[in-house]
């Protein structure tokens, strides 16, 4: 890596293209990865150091205290089910609508994009104020459960999942693919499940990843509607104990990281099997 930089500098400008594309960007690429990566990883290491700091040397006391917190374990389980429900709801609601609008209602496309980006213009802390009467109805109809939060979470993840899915749908010739499938006798559901979904698998995965992360990290609405989710628990612990809160935070971040890494590897394996 370091050896490449002087060689690249020695290349005279008149005939730069080949070598520059091979050498220069590689060094720069690794430099970017290293610097930004260090900024992203250092606080996580600091959390590990901070949470294992004892009176003398290292101690795992803060970490051992995590498993004994029953309320925390319950809250994690609630948040996981919320994440699954939200991803499911988002995909069922958004993907068919996007495909449908692109193929049959192109005039609504701008409206759809506008609506999907609307949650960004209406922050969660604003929504939650207007949400209490609506959630009174939801609780009346569905029963009072923290899982009801999934309904508003589908709205919260729309901007990000829309952008991810839109990028995927733009990269394929949806009209030709759909017309080919329909002319061969496929139904609309078959078009979506067997033609569109396999072609935009990466986009669906990235939409799901960001939705899961958003739900597991959501704090504003859950705390102001008084539901006990993971983030609300972590915030409450933070008031009591600094080292325990840092340990829980790091554990939760690592848990999220493992979950998302697993998800992405599952997507990759399925993709390569279908490809071969």
């Amino acid at each position, binding site marked *: 890596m370091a050896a490449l930089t002087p060689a690249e500098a020695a290349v005279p400008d008149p005939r730069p293209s080949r070598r520059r594309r091979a050498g220069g960007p590689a060094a720069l690429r690794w430099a970017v*990865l290293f610097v930004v*990566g260090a900024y992203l990883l250092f606080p996580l290491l*600091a959390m590990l150091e901070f949470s294992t700091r004892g009176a003398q040397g290292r101690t795992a006391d803060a970490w051992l205290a995590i498993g004994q917190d029953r309320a925390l374990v319950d809250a994690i389980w609630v948040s996981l089910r919320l994440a699954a429900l939200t991803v499911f709801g988002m995909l069922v609601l958004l993907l068919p609508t996007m495909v449908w609008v692109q193929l049959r209602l192109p005039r609504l496309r701008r409206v759809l994009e506008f609506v999907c980006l609307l*949650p960004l213009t209406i922050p969660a802390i*604003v929504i939650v104020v207007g949400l209490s009467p609506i959630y009174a109805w939801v609780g009346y109809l569905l029963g009072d459960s923290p899982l009801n939060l999934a309904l508003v979470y589908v709205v919260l993840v729309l901007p990000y999942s829309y952008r991810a899915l839109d990028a995927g749908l733009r990269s394929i010739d949806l009209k030709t693919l759909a017309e080919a499938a329909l002319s061969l006798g496929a139904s609309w559901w078959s078009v979506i499940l067997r033609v569109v979904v396999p072609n935009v698998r990466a986009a669906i995965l990235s939409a799901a990843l960001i939705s899961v992360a958003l739900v597991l990290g959501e704090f504003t609405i859950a705390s102001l509607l008084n539901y006990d989710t993971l983030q609300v628990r972590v*915030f409450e612990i933070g008031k009591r104990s600094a080292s325990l809160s840092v340990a829980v*935070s790091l554990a*939760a971040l690592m848990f*999220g990281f493992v979950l998302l890494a697993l998800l992405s590897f599952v997507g990759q394996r399925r993709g390569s099997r279908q490809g071969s």
Partner: protein
Amino acid sequence: MTPETDLAAEAPTPTAPAPPRPHRSRAVLRCALDHAGALPFFAFIAVFLLWPTLIVVSGAFTDSNGAFSLDNLTAITGPRFMDAFGRSIWLSLVTALLGAVLGALLAWAVSAAGRSGGDGVTRRLVTALSSVLAQFGGVMLAFAFLATVGLNGWLTIMLRDAFGLDLFAGGNWLYDMPGLILVYCYFQIPLMFIVFLPAMDGLRVQWGEANASLGGTGWHYWRHIAGPILAPAFAGSALLLFANSFSSYATAAALVSQGDPIVPLQIRNVLTSEVSLGQEGVGYALAFGMVVVVAVVMSLYALLQRRTSRWLR
């Protein structure tokens, strides 16, 4: 503004001017069915997004008796709330720009690495880490930075022991605007990476090869090919970052316990303080102000999008 009115306005008129029009009634029916396909989505949005928003907006324009009033809006034009708006906008601007540039660089580095070496593991790990930090973070990111550069943070202690450097010589900056900028970048950069990576992947290797075979340099490639293609996605992502930062509440709520420098914290203060009932209207007005600021940003985004999509055709 509302999709329902659009639907209602469009439904009766047949849109397709197909030359061999068999039955006018069938065209109308088909058009109605087409719109019905999009109805569940828009109905859902109306209930869980537009309705709560209407409640907030009407709350901003009514007094405690439910009569029309501008008192709530005039109440937030005082220096206390206007300064909070100024600081919120400054914070969002700085972190959106920093996040967009660094996040785009990271997306470029990871996308290019995956392309040349098939280094899928690095890409997936960085994607997972970014997802976690960008949207999972919230409250926990505040704790991360307390452990790093807090009064007893690791970096604070290291710098003090190694160089005799006191991070807090200039005051308790971590719990104020500089701290918020530092911590906000910690979720803005990964968010930019996630949002921008698909656009970066859209760049075809062949375009670079075509550029090189025609004698173009790297500068030519970025100036005339990749730059114009990526520009709308970059600008759109940067605006998303601005909105994300402006709307963020959890990180600031966990980091700043007093002073309430930015608007979301002012809203928290108004909503949770038990001073008076009249304060509730001020909360509505502040929330309405936030909606207006981000709506302006998003209008700029729409204008920009229209312009750039014309250039791309």
